[in-house]
C-alpha cells in the first residue's frame, strides 16, 4: 500500500529576531490511507508546523516531504494551491467558516473553487450536511450555530470534494467534551475511507480512542508511535 504522506528527515526552522529556532528536528513519518493518525504532544512541540508543511502552507528547511507521491519542495506555489484545492481537506480549531455564507454554501466552497457549478456544489454539500445531522440547519449562518454545529459544517467543507488527505488541527479544542465526542465520532465515520488518510492534531486525551495510530511528538521530534485502536484503548484503561 502506498503511503499518502512520507516525511524523510524533515527539518524546519523559523527565523526569529536573534537567530533561528529549530522547530522540526529530523522527522521521518509515513501516513497510510484508511487510517486516522493522531499527532499529539505538548504545546509548542511543532505539531501545527508539521501539518502546515505537509499541507504546503509552509516551505520546510531540509529533508523530503512527499504528498500523494509528489515531492512538495519541487512544486510551484500554483501547483501547491492545486494540490490543496483538489486533494486536501482542512479542519481548524477556529472553524474558519465564511461568515456571510449559510452552512450549505460554506460546505460547498471547495467544489465551487474547483469550478463545479453552484447548484451541483450545493446539492453535494446538502447531502453531506444531512449525513452529519445538520439537515435542519442548512440555511443558517455560522453565527446562528453552536460551536459543535459549526465544526460539523467545517467537516462537510473538508470532505465535500472527496480529498485524499484530511488535515485537522485541534478540531475539538474549542468544543465542550460532549460536542467534541460527537464531532470525532462523525469524523471517524465519514472521514476514514480506504483511499484517504486523516491526520488529527490534538492534545485532548479524551479523543485518543478514535485513533488508529498515535504519533507522540516532543520538542520537534517523534517520541513514540502507538499502533492499533486496541492498543491505544488498553493503555488508557
Amino acid at each position, binding site marked *: 500500500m502506498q503511503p499518502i504522506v512520507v516525511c524523510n528527515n524533515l527539518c524546519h526552522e523559523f527565523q526569529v529576531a536573534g537567530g533561528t529556532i529549530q522547530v522540526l528536528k529530523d522527522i521521518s513519518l509515513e501516513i497510510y490511507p484508511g487510517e486516522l493518525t493522531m499527532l499529539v504532544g505538548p504545546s509548542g512541540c511543532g505539531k501545527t508546523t508539521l501539518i502546515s508543511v505537509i499541507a504546503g502552507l509552509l516551505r520546510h528547511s531540509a529533508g523530503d516531504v512527499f504528498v500523494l507521491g509528489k515531492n512538495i519542495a519541487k512544486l510551484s506555489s500554483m501547483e501547491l494551491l492545486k494540490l490543496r484545492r483538489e486533494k486536501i481537506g482542512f479542519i481548524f480549531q477556529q472553524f474558519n467558516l465564511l461568515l*456571510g455564507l449559510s452552512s450549505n*454554501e460554506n460546505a460547498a466552497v471547495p467544489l465551487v473553487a474547483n469550478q463545479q457549478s453552484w447548484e451541483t456544489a450545493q446539492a453535494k454539500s446538502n447531502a453531506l450536511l444531512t449525513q452529519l445531522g445538520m439537515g435542519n440547519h442548512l440555511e443558517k449562518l455560522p453565527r446562528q450555530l453552536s460551536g459543535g454545529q459549526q465544526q460539523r459544517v467545517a467537516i462537510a467543507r473538508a470532505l465535500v470534494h472527496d480529498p485524499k488527505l484530511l488535515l485537522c488541527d485541534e478540531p475539538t479544542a474549542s468544543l465542550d467534551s460532549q460536542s467534541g465526542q460527537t464531532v470525532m465520532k462523525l469524523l471517524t465515520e465519514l472521514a476514514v475511507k480506504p483511499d484517504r488518510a486523516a491526520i488529527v492534531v490534538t492534545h485532548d486525551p479524551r479523543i485518543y480512542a478514535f485513533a488508529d495510530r498515535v504519533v507522540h511528538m516532543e520538542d520537534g521530534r517523534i517520541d513514540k508511535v502507538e499502533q492499533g485502536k486496541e492498543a491505544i484503548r488498553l493503555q488508557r484503561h
Partner: protein
Amino acid sequence: MMRVAFKMLMQDTAKYLGLILGIVFATVLIAQQAGMAWSVILMSVNATTSKTEVDIWVMKPNVEFVDTPESMAEVCLSRVLSVQGVQWAVPYYTGAGMLRSVDGLFKSVSINGVDDYTLTGAPSKDQMVMGNVQDLAQPDSVLVDYIGYRKLYPKAEPKLGGEFEIGQRRCTIVGIYKSKASFSGLPMIVTRRSVAVALARETLNSMTFILVKAKPGIDHRELADRISSETQLRALSRDNFVEMNINWMIKNSGIIENFGITVAMGLVVGIVIVGQTFYMFSVENRKQFAALKAIGVSNSVILQMLLAQAIFVAVIGYAIGIGICSALFYIMNLSPDSSLVGLFLPDTVALATAVIVIVMVILSSVVSAWKVLTVDPALVFRG
C-alpha cells in the same frame, strides 16, 4: 466564486451600507458641483449654439467674451459682405437695459436686436411658446424668453399683449419663446435691431456682432480666417466662438476654482470613507481569506473577488448618487424665479463622475486588497 464574494461583501450589513453611502455621498457632491459649474459655463454659450443657422461670428478684434462685446461701425458689414465665400451677413446687437413694468417695478434685462429686414438671429418657430416671430415687424414689439417672463411676472399666466417700458419707450409683448438659461440670468428681450438700439438708449453704430452664413461647400474656419485678414475684425466659426467663450469663462469666472474645491472635497471624502471601509473589511476578513487560500483559492481569484465587490458597490452607489443628483437639479429648476433655473446635469459630467467614482472605488479596494493578498494562509492554524 463571485457569488461567494457578494455574500462575503454583504455579511456585514452596516459596513456594506456605509460603503454605499460613502460612494453615494461622493457621487452627489462631485456630480452636483461639477454639473453646476459646467452648466453655468455652458450657459454663456447657449445663445450662440442655439443660432444654428449662423456659421461665423464677427466682432471687434479685442472682444474676448460674448457678453462683453463692442460696437462696430456700420461699414464693417459691407466689408464682410464683400469677402468671397460669404452667402449672407447680417448685423446683430446685444446690450442691456432697464425694464419698468406697469406697476413701476424696475428690472435689468438683456436686449437682443436682430436684423430688421430678415429677423436673422431671432428664435426659431420651434422655440416659440406663444405668438409669432414675424410680429416683430409691428412697431415696438418684443419677444420675451419664457424663464424671463416668469421672472418678470411671477404670478401671472404667460399671455401676449403685455406692455412695459424699456429706456422710457413703451413696448408690447408679441411672443414668448423657450430658450436655455443665459449666464447673466437676466430676462431676454428680442426685438428688431432698430428698436433694440432705442430701448438700450444707444446712439449710432450699434452693431456688436455680424452673423455670417458661408456659401455651401466653403469651410467655416477658412472663411473665418479670410474675413479676419480682409476686414481687420475678429471672425470665428461657431465652434471656435463657443470654445473662446468657454475658455474665457474657465479663465475669468473663477467657477472652476470655486466648484473645484468642493469636487476635490467630495473626492477626498469618498476616498477616505470608501478606502477606510474597504481596509476594515480586509483586516476583519483576513482570516476568512486565509481560509480560502488554505483551501486552495489563488490570489488572482481572490483579487477578482475583491474587484467584483468594488465594482458592485461602485455601480450601486453611483446609480443612487446620480439619481439623487438629478432630483436635486430637477428641484432647483422648479421655481421659475430662482437663480438656479437653467442649471442641469450635463451628460459629460455624469459620465466623468462615473469614471471618477469607479476608479476611486477600485483604487481604494486594490490598496486594501494588499492586506488580503499578502495574508499568510498558515494563519488559519493560529488562534
